[in-house]
């Protein structure tokens, strides 16, 4: 039984790692205050789930999730090209509200608040990942590959340019850099990986509904990204592990689940406020939060 629980934790943490490092890429590395990240998670989850439920293979569903999330990321980025700071934050937050409203109301497609049950586990080249242990390997490899790709990009000259755009966009432009394009690419990458996380999430839980994709889900993500340290991928991974595991430990304190949920949120909110005050740079961050 312990084994099953540990496998569950590893899967959960791995999915969240993909979700949070992708947010770090746009938030900490590129300086884009994207508060709508959860929307891409949801778009990825629903795209993947709908395709799987229509009989398409997992590879197609997964790729489509990546693509759709990236597409919307690109659209949102192009629309918000002229915005920065607060305005960008609020507009991206507004986007996540719109996405949620669509998920809840477009009943013919998303089944509204009732959600989509019975999402099949992945089958890749004939191998069924219905066993949680097998699925764990799938998710962990996805997380490793995602980390590797994002690490490659952020430690390359392109990553350097992201940092320059974050630190002083005007100066970057004065050096001949097309920062608008760079910001869009960052946004798209960020959204793509959120979509990947969404696809894996949908296939793991086998049931999704809009309530997993409200802006409340943003709080642990923001907390992770800030506490781990802005522009630090390793810090983000460490923070994900800690932040996801803490509430799990709370289970053992023996509180009823009706109490566990709100306490978890209150804990996150408090820690976030504390971090904003005491260590806005986070633990491994190289960049100040602005």
């Amino acid at each position, binding site marked *: 039984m312990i084994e099953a629980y540990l496998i569950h934790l590893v899967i959960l943490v791995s999915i969240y790692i993909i979700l949070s490092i992708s947010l770090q890429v746009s938030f900490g590395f590129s300086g884009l205050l994207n508060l709508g990240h959860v929307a891409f998670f949801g778009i990825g989850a629903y795209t993947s789930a709908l395709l799987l439920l229509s009989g398409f293979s997992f590879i197609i569903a997964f790729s489509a999730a990546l693509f759709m999330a990236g597409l919307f990321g690109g659209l949102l980025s192009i629309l918000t090209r002229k915005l920065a700071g607060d305005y960008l934050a609020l507009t991206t937050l507004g986007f996540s509200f719109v996405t949620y409203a669509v998920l809840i109301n477009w009943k013919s497609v998303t089944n509204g608040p009732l959600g989509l049950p019975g999402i099949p586990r992945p089958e890749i080249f004939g191998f069924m990942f219905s066993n949680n242990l097998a699925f764990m390997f799938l998710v962990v490899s996805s997380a490793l590959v995602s980390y590797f*790709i994002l690490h*490659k*990009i952020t430690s*390359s*000259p*392109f*990553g*350097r*340019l992201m*940092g*320059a755009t*974050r*630190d*002083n966009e*005007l*100066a*970057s*432009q*004065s*050096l*001949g*850099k*097309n*920062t608008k*394009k*760079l910001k869009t*690419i960052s946004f798209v990458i960020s959204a793509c990986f959120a979509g990947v996380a969404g696809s894996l999430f949908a296939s793991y839980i086998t049931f999704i509904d809009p309530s997993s994709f409200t802006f409340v889900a943003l709080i642990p993500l923001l907390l992770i990204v800030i506490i781990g340290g802005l*522009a630090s991928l390793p810090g983000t991974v460490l923070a994900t592990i800690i932040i996801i595991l803490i509430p799990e430990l709370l289970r053992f304190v023996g509180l009823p689940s009706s109490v566990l949920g709100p306490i978890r949120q209150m804990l996150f909110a408090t820690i976030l406020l504390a971090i904003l005050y005491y260590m806005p740079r986070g633990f491994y961050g*190289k*960049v*100040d939060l602005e």
Partner: protein
Amino acid sequence: MLKIKKLTKYFGGVKAVNNCSFEIEKGKITALIGPNGSGKSTVFNCISGIVKLDDGEIIFKDKKINGLSIDTISNLGISRVFQTSSLFKNLTVQENLLLAIDSGDQKFWKNLFGLNKVDTKKEKLVDEILKKMEITAIKNKPASSLSFGQKRLVELARTILNPHELLILDEPVAGVNPKIRKFIEKILLEMKSKGTTILLIEHDMTFTLSISDSIIVLDAGKVIATGTPAEIRGNEKVLEAYL
């Protein structure tokens, strides 16, 4: 090389630049001077593409550049130093400088697949200019930790590394100590001898008069005098404007 024609710019109800026209000769150092509020920085911002003109034209090497984006203008060969520090504060000095010469950094796929290896040639160029500016020691320090003078030097180095034919410098020696000021003067004269055209704004009159080939005087957004340092020194209109 650079022609400003009837440039006009309003900010709210105020005419910051008022029907301003002048020309910059290739290969020379020209200074734009004038009392505070005379529109000098606005003219620079118009040239760089940061601010849109309300009227007039800016012609660079026979090509109209007003209305183009900031990065396009930079890529046409205009390189700029800003009045306030514009270094990338979380990046190291080396990274700040590499950005100026690595145009491959914008290519996403190349970078993802590791095809944009950091050119040893580029790193060498950076080392060379660090050596020339005598700031090799701070190569790996984050830009935020530098002293004011060091920052100015790094900014100048970055602007010089950025491929250019025209350098526009907004108060390059403001607030730096005399040693660094002399140093910057030396660097600028060296660049001129290599064929670079320089346009600068400065309030330090000694510096300006000693380094410039030509001076343009602005007052209330209009050109009130142009000429050599000697001519300007004795010009009554100029003296009046500054008093």
